[in-house]
């Protein structure tokens, strides 16, 4: 396609840099500075998509981010392979560059011929909310028939199907003043705010070029120079100031608590030869001292029959295409307006060579100087006229207009032939961000607009977004908001409009389609229907009709809808309510929101110092909390079961080596450390001797088990506490909470030392033999170093806290060495262990081994509803201590109830059968559903050492039921099992039992 509608000169395009894109498979030409919308218009192509519900042909309504209709699928870099195609891009904001592949959406087989348009014929049925009233019979048909059909018809573009090839970045920034919008108000504000070089100022604008509405303006002047020259000078001034950051292509989309403002910068989509790896978008999270909102306003469409025909555009958008992009949206223009500002469009279009006439809803007496200006330019103006309907289908071909009689009657109709309509129903200030900041909106009936009222955060609005429309006033308002006093002179604008909701017509209003929300196909009659059915709050109307809920979030439609409802109900507009604006201002990619948090940076994996060795030695890993842990170390040909059987046997016959570094570790230090421990744990600590270890049980204040672990007393005033792997952060927080807020009198310090110590567990009859050659200053003999004691010394010459503890029941040591030495010590012990048949084992074998001897795992046997007594651990609950965290709760009626679930063992009738963890237990498998469940399986393993399967379970009153038979669910049904004690293996030789 060539560019028949491109002007030979003018505009902000660079004719020395031609470019082309692929549009629906054809070549579309343009210049640097174009958008897809301006290229389409320059080429004479107005049909740009099909509507959501009725599949009506749609064109380009606007020139900015409020575009509801021209939505395109774009493959941003088709030449670089898949992964860069996305739907629902607004043609008016996609910057043109070589290589873009764009396609229109929501039609089949083609844009020109769309079968879905049959919906337009069925539209008398498809009114607002019709689906609530039907599709109910037969009942099963909703899921299977109706809904799939509705779903296929709905939706706009196609979701991406392959992973995104682009990357996204993010950045945090702080500033004294954030100015949102680089139109005349924003520029003036930024200039004023940054005059003091100590104040950090950020100026962000969603457009690719600063200037705002001045980009469309070829007649105004500011400070005695043409407006865009003033913009250029202002930018040069700002650029020269080191305290200013100007960010074009940056949309401020969210205004959150405490002046936390989020914006997204389009970094590379507009660059044809962007380097590989350059971020596509950047999320800015700005904490601003003050925010100046200079976000401008949105033009309102007029609501009349067929107001959605391609070629019918907003008046300011017509002006923009003519002036900024030197692209004429047609030859014959009718300007239909109730707003003075549209006269500027008429004048500029005429000056650019279009044939122009004006239809003004207002009476001549209500017009301002714009009327004389139009007359002077030789433009025919019909005042006091309404538009009855638009003609044409895929392109507007005319407007039927009529004089409005003094009593509101419709006079004789005239058809104005045209190929373009510029419409304006006035202006709606863009108060989105103000509203997001929780500021209260106030309705101004004079301006027919909601304006910023009471502020909640440190922010000010300036210019059109607070209803100031005259250019001179806008510049002054901006300067003032930026803290300045003086502002340059500027040209006066044509301002003022008469609010109209639906244009007067003599057509049957219940038949005509006059669109309020273009994208969601909501017409005036839909809104009337909703009100008729009792939906009176604007929120109800929105939800019933879906007006304002499309991808443009009602930027162009909300005020027309609100006014229409108010009019029907004959209530003041604010009484109908206003929409609360929610982030984002315009849609934001998930990619920008997540930024670099993808793949390996999604949730970084915690690895122990021995992880590298495990990986090299064939470990299969599993995620445990944020850590990855070696689950088992298969030898060639082994599956998990075989590997675990071998590893568990090795521990009981020779020796195993296990990486326990992930265990949480907290050091509790201070004169009152023992007293603190006494209050936090259920058991007693005052009498634990230095060098002794004790198993500690910790409750929440509600009496349920919170965490457990072995605690060593290293000195009178120093405890080395271990926690579960997942529990470390919350246990430290829990301890700090009580220490700082309840017992500030205690002189204790808490330090997380999880990362400081690598922990190597040696478990098994030969553990001592492996360790002995490397230990200095510690006597390893049973007499000198009994079970549940701790000593400090050296292993391999490295300072060490050596624990004589066991989580397997076997002779065991846990070697704590500084993390940096963890791998070296491990390797040394492993080498030495070769003589003794040492076997590295993983978490799976660890679980089996501990279950064999009946040790619980908090989080597996317990689930947040379990008391110490439920676990058979009431012996660990001090009867002597007057108080500890959770003690009082243990005395509540339900905590001492007889039928509580208790920890027991389960032995399957068939010793080879391994129960499912999580399986439920019943007494009678033949009872009817719903069945009475009496327990559940918490842990279950094939135990090579026991020569059979073993399981732990929580059973109602289980300790009284040892020896009884129960039935346990399996994937296929039930299996029989006997309740047993939860200790399955008796350790031979030198045991760990204390």
């Amino acid at each position, binding site marked *: 396609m060539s560019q028949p509608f491109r002007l030979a000169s003018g505009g902000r395009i660079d004719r020395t840099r031609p470019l082309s894109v692929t549009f629906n498979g054809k070549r579309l030409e343009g210049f640097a500075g174009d958008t897809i919308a301006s290229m389409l218009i320059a080429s004479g192509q107005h049909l740009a998509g099909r509507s959501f519900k009725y599949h009506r042909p749609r064109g380009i309504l606007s020139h900015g981010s409020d575009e509801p209709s021209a939505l395109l699928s774009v493959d941003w870099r088709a030449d670089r392979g898949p992964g860069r195609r*996305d739907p*629902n891009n607004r043609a008016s904001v996609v910057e043109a560059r070589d290589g873009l592949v764009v396609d229109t959406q929501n039609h089949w087989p083609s844009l020109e011929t769309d079968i879905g348009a049959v919906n337009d014929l069925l539209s008398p049925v498809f009114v607002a909310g*019709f689906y*609530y*009233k*039907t599709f109910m*019979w037969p009942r099963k048909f*909703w*899921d299977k028939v109706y*809904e*799939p059909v509705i*779903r*296929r018809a*709905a*939706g*706009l573009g*196609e*979701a*991406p*199907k392959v992973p*995104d090839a682009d990357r*996204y970045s993010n950045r945090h920034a702080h500033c004294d003043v954030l100015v949102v919008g680089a139109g005349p108000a924003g520029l003036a504000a930024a200039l004023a705010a940054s005059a003091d070089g100590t104040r950090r100022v950020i100026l962000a604008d969603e457009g690719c070029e600063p200037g705002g509405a001045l980009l469309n303006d070829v007649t105004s002047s500011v400070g005695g120079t043409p407006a865009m020259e003033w913009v250029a000078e202002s930018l040069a001034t700002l650029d020269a100031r080191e305290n200013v950051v100007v960010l074009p292509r940056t949309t401020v989309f969210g205004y959150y608590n405490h002046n936390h403002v989020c914006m997204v910068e389009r970094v590379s989509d507009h660059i044809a030869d962007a380097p590989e790896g350059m971020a596509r978008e950047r999320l800015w*999270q700005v904490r601003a001292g003050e925010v100046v909102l200079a976000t401008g306003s949105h033009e309102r469409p007029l609501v009349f029959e067929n107001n959605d025909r391609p070629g019918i555009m907003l008046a300011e958008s017509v002006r923009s295409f003519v002036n900024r992009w030197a692209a004429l949206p047609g030859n014959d223009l009718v300007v239909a307006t109730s707003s003075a500002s549209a006269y500027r469009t008429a004048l500029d279009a005429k000056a650019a060579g279009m044939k122009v006439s004006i239809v003004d809803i207002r009476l001549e007496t209500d017009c301002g100087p714009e009327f004389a200006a139009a007359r002077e330019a030789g433009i025919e103006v019909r005042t006091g006229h309404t538009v009855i309907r638009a003609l044409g289908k895929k392109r507007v071909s005319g407007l039927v207009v009529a004089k409005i009689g003094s009593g509101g009657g419709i006079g004789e109709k005239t058809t104005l032939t045209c190929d373009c309509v510029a419409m304006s129903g006035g202006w709606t200030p863009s108060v989105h961000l103000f509203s997001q900041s*929780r500021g209260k909106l106030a309705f101004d009936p004079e301006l027919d607009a909601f304006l910023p009222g009471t502020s909640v955060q440190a922010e000010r609005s300036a210019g059109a977004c607070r209803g100031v429309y005259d250019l001179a006033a806008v510049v002054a308002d901006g300067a003032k908001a930026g803290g300045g006093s003086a502002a340059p002179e500027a040209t006066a604008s044509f301002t003022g409009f008469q609010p109209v909701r639906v244009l007067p017509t003599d057509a049957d209003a*219940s*038949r005509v389609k006059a669109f309020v929300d273009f994208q969601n196909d909501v017409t005036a009659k839909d809104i009337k*229907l909703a009100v*008729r059915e*009792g*939906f*009176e*709050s604007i*929120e109800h109307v929105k939800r*019933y009709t879906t007006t304002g809920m499309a*991808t443009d*979030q009602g930027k162009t439609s909300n005020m027309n809808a609100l006014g229409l409802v108010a009019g029907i109900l004959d209530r003041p507009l604010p009484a109908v309510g206003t929409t609360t604006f*929610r982030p984002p201002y315009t849609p*934001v*990619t*998930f*990619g920008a929101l*997540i930024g670099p*948090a*993808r793949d390996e940076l*999604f*949730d970084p994996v915690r690895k122990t110092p021995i992880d590298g060795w495990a990986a090299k030695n064939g470990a299969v890993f599993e*995620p445990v909390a944020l850590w990855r842990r070696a689950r088992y170390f298969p030898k060639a040909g082994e599956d998990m079961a075989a590997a675990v059987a071998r590893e568990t046997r090795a521990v009981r016959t020779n020796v195993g080596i296990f990486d326990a570094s992930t265990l949480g570790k907290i050091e509790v230090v201070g004169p009152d450390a023992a007293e603190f421990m006494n209050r936090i744990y259920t058991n007693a600590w005052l009498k634990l001797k230095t060098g002794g270890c004790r198993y500690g049980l910790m409750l929440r204040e*509600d009496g349920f088990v919170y965490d457990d672990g072995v605690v060593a007393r290293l000195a009178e005033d120093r405890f080395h506490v271990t926690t579960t792997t997942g529990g470390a952060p919350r246990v430290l927080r829990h301890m700090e909470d009580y220490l700082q807020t309840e017992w500030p009198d205690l002189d204790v310090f808490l330090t997380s030392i999880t990362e400081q110590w690598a922990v190597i567990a040696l478990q098994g009859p030969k553990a001592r033999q492996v360790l002995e050659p490397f230990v200095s200053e510690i006597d390893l003999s049973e007499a000198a170093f009994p079970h549940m004691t701790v000593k400090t010394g050296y292993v391999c010459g490295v300072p060490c806290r050596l624990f004589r503890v066991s989580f397997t029941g076997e002779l065991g040591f846990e070697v704590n060495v500084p993390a940096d030495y963890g791998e070296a010590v491990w390797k040394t012990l492993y080498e030495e262990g070769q003589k003794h048949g040492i076997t590295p084992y993983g978490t799976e074998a660890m679980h089996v081994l501990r279950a064999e001897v009946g040790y619980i795992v908090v*989080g597996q046997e317990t*689930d*947040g*509803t379990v008391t110490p007594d439920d676990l058979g651990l009431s012996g660990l609950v001090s009867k002597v201590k007057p108080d500890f965290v959770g003690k009082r709760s243990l005395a*509540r009626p*339900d905590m001492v109830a007889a039928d509580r679930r208790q920890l027991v063992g389960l032995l399957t009738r068939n010793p080879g059968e391994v129960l499912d963890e*999580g399986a*439920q237990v*019943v007494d009678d498998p033949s009872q009817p559903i*719903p069945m009475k469940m009496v327990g*559940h399986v918490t842990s279950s393993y094939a135990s090579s050492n026991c020569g059979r399967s073993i399981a732990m379970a929580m059973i109602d009153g289980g300790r009284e039921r040892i020896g009884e038979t129960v039935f346990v*669910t399996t994937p296929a049904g039930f299996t029989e099992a006997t309740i047993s004690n939860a200790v399955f293996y008796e350790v031979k030789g030198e045991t760990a039992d204390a």
Partner: protein
Amino acid sequence: MRRFSLKGLLQEAASGHQGWERQWRAPEPKKEYDVVIVGGGGHGLATAYYLASVHGVTNVAVIEKGWIGGGNTGRNTTIVRSNYLFDESAGLYEHAMKLWEGLSQELNYNVMFSQRGVLMLAHNHHDVISFKRHVYANRLNGIDNEWLSPEECKAFCPPLTISPDIRYPVLGGALQRRGGTARHDAVAWGYARGADARGVDIIQNCEVLGLKRHPDGSVAGVETTRGTIGAKRVGVVAAGHTGVVMSRFGLRMPVESVPLQALVSEPVKPVFPCVVMSNAVHAYISQSDKGELVIGAGTDQYVSYSQQGGIQIINHTLDAICELFPQFTRMRMLRSWGGIVDVTPDRSPIIGKTPIEGLFVNCGWGTGGFKATPGSGHVFAHTLATGEPHKINAPFSLDRFRTGRLIDEAAAAAVAH
């Protein structure tokens, strides 16, 4: 009430839809009602509907501070499921599920209940045990729930990544095929229309200011912005604002109100066939009939009535969504919002009596109230009609916070609702 039917719709289409009536009236409050329900959300409206339709109690008013369905009813991610672990919860939510299954027909209002299946993903060993425990318990309670292998998860939800190389690989999933979604607004409107047709007064823009009590302390009515309204019994169903209402009545509740956020994407053609919940990574996602991906995020950590949370909550949720569905990073967030949810210490609701005679409460649904709407209304109607709890809601009493008999699904499974 004029019945909705295809025939009626076609007739109206022929005559320009001029004949539709109001779906509910806008009456002035009467001097006195048998029952006044405070709160015009789904639960309150359902309560009114079942009071009238099941118990014949029609002298009922639902009073609503704003517009009906404007709170959490219209702000949730519309997920419906009943695969809860404990018998008490399973009983309550399955009761609701059975009512959902015939609700459109019962109300003569298409609430678009779509049993597309709810798939809960397990990402670690703990999840696997927990979900299997649910699956087995549900099976014995007559509730459908099945365990799927990663490959079966992928077959059920083709967009899902089951690569073992991602941060939290999918180890399997629990699928409730009868679970799904419904059109949240329609639930409120359908109950309102049905209740109204049976004589219930729905009074919007009416805020409760205080409780009127007889000399013996029992309930006599409520003071409102539209005057005093007498009532023999009062049921408070005010979700996130329950604490506020009850404090006006002089009562404290074991609830805290926190923001819960959600978001939708731009609408796209069908791409997501079911509901997926991933607890370990804090995300749930489905696709609406309109084509938007509907994504539920977490709660903020502090008490707030602002219906606005921090963006870090949204970001965190999207991190997880895009880890499981990396093809969605180019999708765009269209709208995000917050609701105020009332959370109890055990994350289970409170449905029953209060210390004041004649005053009843139904609150504490936290993040999971929508799915319970029909069941909650049904049992609360029973409670209000008879003065005693239904056997299904008896365990959900206030007294459990004294005895310690909590119904702690969250602690049992670390499963969000």
